[in-house]
């Protein structure tokens, strides 16, 4: 079982890294990080903050773009091109197929975020004069955010076209960064029913701000170990939930 999932994951990974657009995204991220140093010269005193902030922002932005860009086509393309028939006629169950695809993209993202992180950390190191250990946690949390976005993209990809999947995933991404507001809205919401509804919505949508520690690290504050572990747990659990729903939907689907 693990062997099959690994086979699908490596195949997905190999296919993804062949795409030149991936190189382009990474180069853009490098360019944006480099540009942040130029920008920082204009703001005397807070140079390091600017580089730290914008660099991490670029890493998250391009990571998200890659996750969505590849994620939304992963399942749909196989169905559309009919390459999936031969695969699912093997002793591969549908959940294994989805999980394999997911792991393949996560592997791709690990490499890509890894590259961007090396560039980013080197840049900050050069600016600060010492290795920014506290940023490792921030990079890791960004990767966990990507794991959720990937799972959401695959969920949508498993039943709709890339176009709609893109729209839905971007919507979840945007709303996901606003849900922390919902948590505080629960207390002040009028009526029990509304409160219930709002809290349901809060739990259904991912709270992506959990993974955003930029405001902390910019000021050189470390991110607590417990906080990181909680966030990783949340990311894994939420992704697993998304993949479970994806499997339920995909299992029922006719591959015509």
């Amino acid at each position: 079982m693990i062997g099959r999932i690994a086979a699908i994951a490596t195949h997905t990974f190999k296919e993804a890294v062949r795409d030149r657009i991936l190189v382009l995204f990474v180069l853009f991220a490098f360019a944006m990080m480099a540009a942040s140093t130029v920008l920082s010269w204009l703001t005397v005193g807070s140079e390091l903050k600017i580089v730290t902030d914008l660099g991490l922002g670029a890493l998250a932005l391009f990571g998200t773009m890659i996750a969505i860009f590849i994620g939304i086509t992963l399942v749909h393309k196989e169905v559309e091109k009919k390459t999936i028939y031969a695969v699912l006629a093997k002793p591969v169950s549908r959940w294994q197929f989805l999980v394999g695809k997911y792991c393949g993209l996560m592997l791709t993202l690990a490499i890509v975020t890894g590259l961007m992180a090396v560039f980013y950390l080197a840049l900050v190191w050069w600016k600060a004069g010492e290795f920014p250990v506290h940023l490792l946690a921030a990079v890791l949390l960004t990767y966990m955010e990507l794991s959720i976005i990937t799972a959401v993209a695959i969920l949508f990809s498993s039943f709709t076209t890339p176009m709609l999947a893109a729209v839905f995933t971007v919507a979840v991404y945007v709303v996901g960064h606003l849900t922390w507001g919902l948590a505080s809205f629960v207390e002040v919401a009028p009526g029990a029913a509304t409160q219930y509804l709002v809290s349901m919505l809060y739990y259904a949508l991912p709270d992506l701000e959990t993974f955003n520690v930029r405001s902390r690290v910019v000021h050189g504050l470390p991110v607590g170990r417990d906080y990181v572990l909680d966030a990783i747990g949340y990311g894994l659990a939420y992704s697993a939930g998304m993949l479970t729903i994806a499997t339920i939907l995909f299992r029922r689907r006719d591959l015509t």
Partner: protein
Amino acid sequence: MSVVRFEHVAKSLPYGFWLRRKQVLLDVSLTVERGEVYGFLGPNGSGKTTSLKCLLGLLRPDAGTVEIFGRPGNDPDARRKLGYLPEHPYFYPHLTGRELVDYFGRLFDLPSDVRRRRTDELIELVGMADKAAQPIKQYSKGMMQRIGMAQALINDPDLVILDEPMSGLDPIGRREVKDIILDLKARGTTVLFSSHILADAEALCDRVGLLFEGKIVRESGVDELLEGRVQYWDATCDDLQAEQVPGYRCRATQGDRLYFRITDADDLDRWIDIVRQAGGRVVQVSPHRHTLEDFFIGTIRGDRRLADGTGSEGPA
């Protein structure tokens, strides 16, 4: 135990903007026994591909059951010893033929040495040895079909399901696929293949099922269909005039050569006696057997005479 079993399978598929459903399969029931080569025949659009997809769990039947090796078709474990060649196969264009076969070998959890050995053997078998290093996007239709055949056999299957295995192949390729099927049969592998080329089915199958408009309209052994089903004999004799063979209608004459068409074995015996007694010489008696083609067309037209081979007149 049957290797493949369809029992009253029905399936509708959505079409059009409003996703209205078209009833593609009405009632498909058939069984394939161990070691058999089964021809799944039917005209275009009769539902062969749809049936096979239901069997493999790619489609969920609306009603009825499908089983492979006694397990439900959508159970992944049922597919461990199964090989499948999809219709008009399309594979990952960026992989080479060899990488593709190897990838599918991984999906069967085959150890790498077994994979390598079988991949080599199969690529050789399907005549792709010199093209296996090319990316699939450079393959022609027939090459795709060949590599598809190779991947269908990677796990040394006990059951092979081939959806139109000969389509897109040149005459040599067809011959080779036939040989592969016969070779599988000799090794006791069960083969279920769909086709509308009846001559292929006639040459390969133990049994055939005829699908028409989503229903199995006929299922029987090939021998049973063809054996002894001489439709008529074309009989020719020399050195006689038509009047010398009373009771038989002469179809044509050419000098003192007479041509007859006789539909009954006893009549033929009598005809030979009469010709010889009258001093004539029997030049030729050639039986015209029923072909699957007749069976096919006959059954579809609801023409029992043609379908059963009891017709008095063959095709002119």
